[in-house]
């Protein structure tokens, strides 16, 4: 159903293009949704393809750090929950690849880019998960940060992306709660368990804050994305919101947030926090994080391992089409 009304921008005289752009922006300003076959500026399409495909890759690569614990979860109950959570993330990837496909890029191209190491995904998934508490910290903090980022995307101007986000957000709060539940169990356990929870918070806190992207002063794509209503709030606003929401949750667990500069500011009614190490962020994005290579290899191998299933399914489908053609 999502065939493309491709914008043959090259063929349009400039006045006509300006008119189309003006009508397009007016629709956005009026909070109308843009649908796949509608005319859209090439840059809007391009921005969305980049953002949605990166988002899809993040969901898919995001399965790896937690997948690490699927066979080692401490009980059958925890294992069933984690399995369901990881399966949801696969689904999120699938919803998002579909949304990107409506813009004229094929799923195979996107997957190939990921395998070739050409695609970006969220920096957070390049950190290791050495303990069970990491699974708790990921659900609580990483899915928590994702929720803050994703809720405004439910109102994104591009219809298929917004609809995918509605479905995703519906599933995310289970992810966050199961993570917090793991943290709670650990924090009400032995000293060693509490230490394990604290250690996980220490390692995941700063990378979670980086999930909201560079500070507004350095954010390259922000203004245009805001005008197009792809983005609704700035990186810094969302980050602040996450911090304000999360600190009391950490206090409830009896854990210390690893930031000596953290303090409640009565006047602004927000938490003040210390400087974020943006050099670390850039390094991880550029491929120098603790697990970048491991993730890329794991994904490529899993994809290869599954090739025989895809081939068998394709051969079976082929055989059946040939047979039914033979009969008629």
């Amino acid at each position, binding site marked *: *159903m*999502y*065939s493309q*009304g491709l914008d043959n921008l090259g063929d349009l005289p400039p006045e006509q293009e300006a008119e189309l752009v003006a009508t397009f922006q007016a629709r956005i300003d009026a909070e109308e949704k843009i*649908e796949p*076959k*509608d*005319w859209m500026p090439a840059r809007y399409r391009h921005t969305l393809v980049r953002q949605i495909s990166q988002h899809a890759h993040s969901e898919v690569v995001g399965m790896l750090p937690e997948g690490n614990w699927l066979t080692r979860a401490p009980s059958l109950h925890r294992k069933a929950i984690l399995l*369901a959570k990881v*399966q*949801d993330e696969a*689904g999120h990837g*699938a*919803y998002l690849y*579909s949304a990107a*496909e409506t813009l004229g890029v*094929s*799923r*195979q191209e996107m*997957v*190939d880019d990921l*395998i070739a190491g050409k695609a970006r995904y969220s920096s957070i998934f390049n950190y290791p998960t050495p303990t069970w508490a990491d699974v708790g910290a990921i659900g609580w903090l990483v899915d928590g940060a994702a929720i803050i980022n994703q809720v405004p995307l439910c109102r994104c101007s591009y219809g298929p992306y917004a*609809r*995918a986000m509605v*479905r995703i957000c519906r*599933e995310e709060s289970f992810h966050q709660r199961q993570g917090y539940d793991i943290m709670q169990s650990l924090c009400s356990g032995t000293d060693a368990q509490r230490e394990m929870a604290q250690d996980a918070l220490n390692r995941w806190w700063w990378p979670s804050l980086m999930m909201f992207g560079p500070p507004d002063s350095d954010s390259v794509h922000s203004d245009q994305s805001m005008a197009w209503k792809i983005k609704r709030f700035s990186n810094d606003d969302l980050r602040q919101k996450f911090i304000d929401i999360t600190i009391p949750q950490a206090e409830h667990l009896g854990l210390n947030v690893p930031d000596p500069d953290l303090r409640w500011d009565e006047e602004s009614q927000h938490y003040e926090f210390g400087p974020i190490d943006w050099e670390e962020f850039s390094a991880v994005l550029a491929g120098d994080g603790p697990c970048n290579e491991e993730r890329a290899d794991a994904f490529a191998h899993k*994809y*290869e391992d599954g*090739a025989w299933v*895809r*081939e068998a*399914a*394709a051969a*079976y*489908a082929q055989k*059946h*089409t040939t047979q039914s053609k033979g009969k008629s």
Partner: protein
Amino acid sequence: MSNASNQGWPLYEVFVRAKAGLDHRHVGSVHAPDDELALQHARELYTRRMEGVSLWVVRSSAIVASDPASSDALFAPAQDKIYRHPTFYTVPEGVDNL
């Protein structure tokens, strides 16, 4: 080793009936090599939380859609036929159940 093995998998649109008495509603799409697997994929992707009691999948290529460029020609004529709506008529004061 063939990255091309699912390149040609057609796209299917997925419709879910949330419960008896409601229409099937479009929820998204899946790629699959054939109808049977499309249904399996749709079940796995869109009904993991009791979202539905019935599923339809249909090849996206089988759907005939109107072109947004001609939406004026198709839908605008309805705009000047407001007499098709009950709110067009004024009901005299004191007249009920109309």
